[in-house]
């Protein structure tokens, strides 16, 4: 069984699954026979190459990537602060919980529509991204604070570390793996939400704008080409973060 889970075998099976997906797609496109409803895979690939060569493609991808990054950074700062506050103080937790509950349960579309009333088109996706990700990070950090090793906190008490030393030396380092896990799970959501908000708010340079434009012109192959681009970008950024997390590990058993 161990050999089954070996890396190479896992990769081969993954490739087989992708190949099967593409074959089914190809057969379906032949049966349907209309490019507007389902273009063939090679058609989408060709369209991807043709849009990639355009200057507007690079501007759109750059702008969307930046919006996603800004959204993540601001959510990180907000979520980290709020999570530490909620985890260390019951009053802060009681105060912030309703705010977080509202942002977590409000429909994405309502937030996008409201943001379109309040902000410039460029800012709408960033704002929506923040509202989606910040509650996830807050919950993760709060969970991290709650699970700080009590034995280390006792150590801080008997050696008389003050509150800021305990926070800096014990709490925050314990929370870092939780923050990274939170970032990892919100990265994919961030791309999706930002692009969704772009589709509606239509900034000048944006992948979402490209998607919407293609759809309006019934360029189905181009809609799919943009989608493939989004999937690749999301996957690349997730892999980069995984690499970073792998290198940041100092965690070891405490005994």
């Amino acid at each position, binding site marked *: 069984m161990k050999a089954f889970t070996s890396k190479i075998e896992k990769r081969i099976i993954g490739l087989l699954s992708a190949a099967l997906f593409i074959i089914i797609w190809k057969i379906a496109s032949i049966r349907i026979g209309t490019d507007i409803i389902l273009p063939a895979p090679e058609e989408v690939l060709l369209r991807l190459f043709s849009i990639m060569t355009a200057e507007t493609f690079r501007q759109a991808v750059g702008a969307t990537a930046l919006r996603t990054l800004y959204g993540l950074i601001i959510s990180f700062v907000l979520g980290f602060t709020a999570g530490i506050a909620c985890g260390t103080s019951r009053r802060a937790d009681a105060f912030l919980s309703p705010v977080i509950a509202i942002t977590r349960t409000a429909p994405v579309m309502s937030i996008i529509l409201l943001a379109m009333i309040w902000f410039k088109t460029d800012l709408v996706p960033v704002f929506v991204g923040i509202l989606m990700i910040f509650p996830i990070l807050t919950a993760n950090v709060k969970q991290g604070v709650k699970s700080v090793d009590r*034995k*280390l906190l*006792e*150590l801080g*008490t*008997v*050696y*008389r*570390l*003050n509150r800021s*030393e305990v926070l800096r*030396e*014990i709490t925050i*380092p314990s929370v870092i793996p939780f923050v990274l896990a939170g970032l990892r799970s919100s990265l994919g959501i961030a791309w999706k939400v930002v692009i969704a908000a772009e589709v509606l708010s239509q900034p000048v340079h944006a992948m979402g704008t490209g998607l919407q434009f293609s759809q309006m012109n019934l360029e189905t192959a181009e809609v799919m080409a943009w989608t493939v681009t989004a999937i690749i970008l999301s996957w690349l950024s997730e892999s980069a973060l995984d690499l970073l997390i792998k290198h940041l590990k*100092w*965690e*070891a*058993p*405490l*005994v």
Partner: protein
Amino acid sequence: MSEKGISIENVSFAYENNRAAASQGCAERELIFDNFSMELPASKVSVILGPSGCGKTTLLNLVSGLLNSEDGSISSMNNDEQNNFSVLFQEPRLLPWRNISRNIELVLKKHYGAEKARETAGHYLKLVGLEKFTEYFPAQLSGGMRQRAAIARAFAFPADTILMDEPFQALDLGLKINLTSLFTKLWVEDRRTSIFVTHDINEAILLGDEIFVLSGQRPAEVIEHISNPEAHQERNLESETSINIEKKLYRLLTV
């Protein structure tokens, strides 16, 4: 160095909630100490010996202030200033994200300033034979080396009293003997008031100047007090004094 003993007067204690009580193997609200008093002399190693679950760790936590007694008092004998403690726990309790030198500097900084803290940490790490490993992280060291670093931290901290909660319990026999003699070597330098909690008769004989035996029932009581007249460096388990003490302790603990 230290002139202060510890005086425990009429202390009563029970665990308030079920979980804390269960973790100590007793029922909620069951009195672990009832009007309990004892004097622990200055500049000596007092050993608290007793079967598992008799309240040894609870007593140590009451002395260190990790737990608060319901009534009665625990104080240093000249009560003009607050007593402070170094604690050597059952596990090393080193911060995994700091190298061992930084682990020690952390608790010293407030008392000595950054530079002297660094020097002092280096000095004590040399005394415990870890001078080549000051930059190593806990995960890179063996269990015995980590406990040595913890011993260095306990002695480096400018406390009047050193409290030890079965610090060698998890180690194999060779390491136990090795660290027991390391402790003796460091202890005779400044003869700080020390309280050593253990259920191991041999450790009690090798380290204790005063051996207090706690009863196995609750509430706990001191059922015997034995003084060991031999000088620390001359103690070994084969001397007549040691054998006599061992016989006595064995009888007390097996009734």
